[in-house]
């Protein structure tokens, strides 16, 4: 399908750390959109939360001048992704059409090598079969596969939304408009810290923002070519 797209898309996300206030709306939104399972206190205490998107929090400086930095961390959809070559069965692979890292759940056999090789620790693993006791399962999103035990999963840039928008655009015979596709996190974000768009579109919002002086890609030096661009926060110093 995607290959029918006249224009070749490259989806990128810009996260303005100066706007981000760490409220966590994106985390919950992501979970609700993508049928991410909740695992309870004990599992989380043992580091088995399923959050696709987490807000990394750092302490800077010493009391009383201690400061906090928030940094939403998710799959960076690397153009040159370390997770892809190591998968023995192509369960995680590169989509030429949208330039995304696709995780094909039904192909995954759970070697977890991709997760070891991900410098962003962006992947989570289904340690068990997680449950949504009736009627909690009513809100599961039918556009997103519910993952079973033994499968690796990660942020998909809400590919189901991208696909839907692309299909609609194709039906109407037009390119996807800027801002037409919004992943759940960007949509929920109260501070508009997360902006999503198509890099190929020269006058898209992301393009404009990414040109900022503050822009940087996380762990760029590894050559992963992430498609999430952070804008650093520069606090005023009194």
């Amino acid at each position, binding site marked *: *399908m*995607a*290959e*029918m797209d006249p224009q070749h898309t490259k989806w990128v996300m810009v996260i303005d750390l100066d706007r981000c206030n760490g409220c966590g709306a994106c985390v919950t939104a992501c979970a609700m959109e993508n049928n991410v399972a909740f695992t309870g206190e004990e599992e989380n205490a043992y580091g088995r939360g399923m959050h696709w998107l987490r807000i990394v929090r750092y302490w800077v400086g010493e009391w009383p001048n201690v400061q906090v930095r928030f940094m939403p961390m998710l799959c960076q959809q690397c153009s040159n992704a370390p997770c892809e070559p190591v998968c023995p069965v*192509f369960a995680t*692979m590169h*989509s*030429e*059409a*949208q330039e*995304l890292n*696709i995780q*094909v*759940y*039904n*192909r995954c056999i759970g070697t977890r090598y991709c997760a070891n090789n991900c410098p962003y620790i962006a992947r989570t693993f289904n340690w068990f079969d997680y449950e949504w006791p009736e009627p909690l399962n009513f809100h599961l999103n*039918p*556009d*997103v*596969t*519910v993952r079973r035990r033994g499968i690796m999963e990660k942020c998909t840039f809400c*590919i*189901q939304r991208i*696909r839907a928008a692309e*299909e609609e655009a194709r039906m109407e015979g037009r390119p996807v408009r800027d801002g037409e596709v919004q992943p759940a996190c960007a949509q929920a974000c109260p501070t508009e810290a997360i902006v999503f768009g198509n890099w190929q579109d020269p006058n898209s919002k992301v393009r404009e923002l990414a040109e900022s002086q503050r822009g940087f890609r996380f762990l760029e030096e590894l050559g992963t070519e992430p498609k999430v661009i952070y804008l650093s926060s520069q606090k005023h110093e009194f």
Partner: protein
Amino acid sequence: MQATSSQVRKAVITVVVLSVLGVLLVAAVGLYRSQQTPPQPLPFNHQVHVQKVGLSCLYCHSNANKGQSAGMPTTQRCIACHQQIEPTTEGERILRQYAENEESIPWVPVAIMPDFVYFSHQVHVNANISCEQCHGEVGQSTIAPSLTKKQNMGWCLACHQNQPQERVARLTSCEACHK
């Protein structure tokens, strides 16, 4: 020497024969099970509706050209015609029942798409692919059909790979179908 070699031969032969038999048995059972048609809430006859009455598939599966899933007919859709028809068959009587209780008919779909597969009827129907091409001659069947064709990944690819690149996706990328 002689004795032993004959013993050996016996042993080997029995093992082989037994294993072959076992395989065959399993295969037979599997084949049988897979050909069963599911119990439907009422004995619906496609042939009558399609051949005799001459309904198009879209009349009942009306969503096929509008969205992902083709959809099962609502009770209203059935009763709309059937209220003019005196119920003669068992099926029609059951249908009346559902209509009177204002219940939906719990049809059992036979062409199931695994939930990790993304498939849109709309795209295919609008590309003028006849229903029979994938669903077989359902219109001929008098009972609720079983899935005649094995619809698996290779089956999708077999068709798509032969399509002109510019018109149809070649499904070379997983995310085209897998969500």
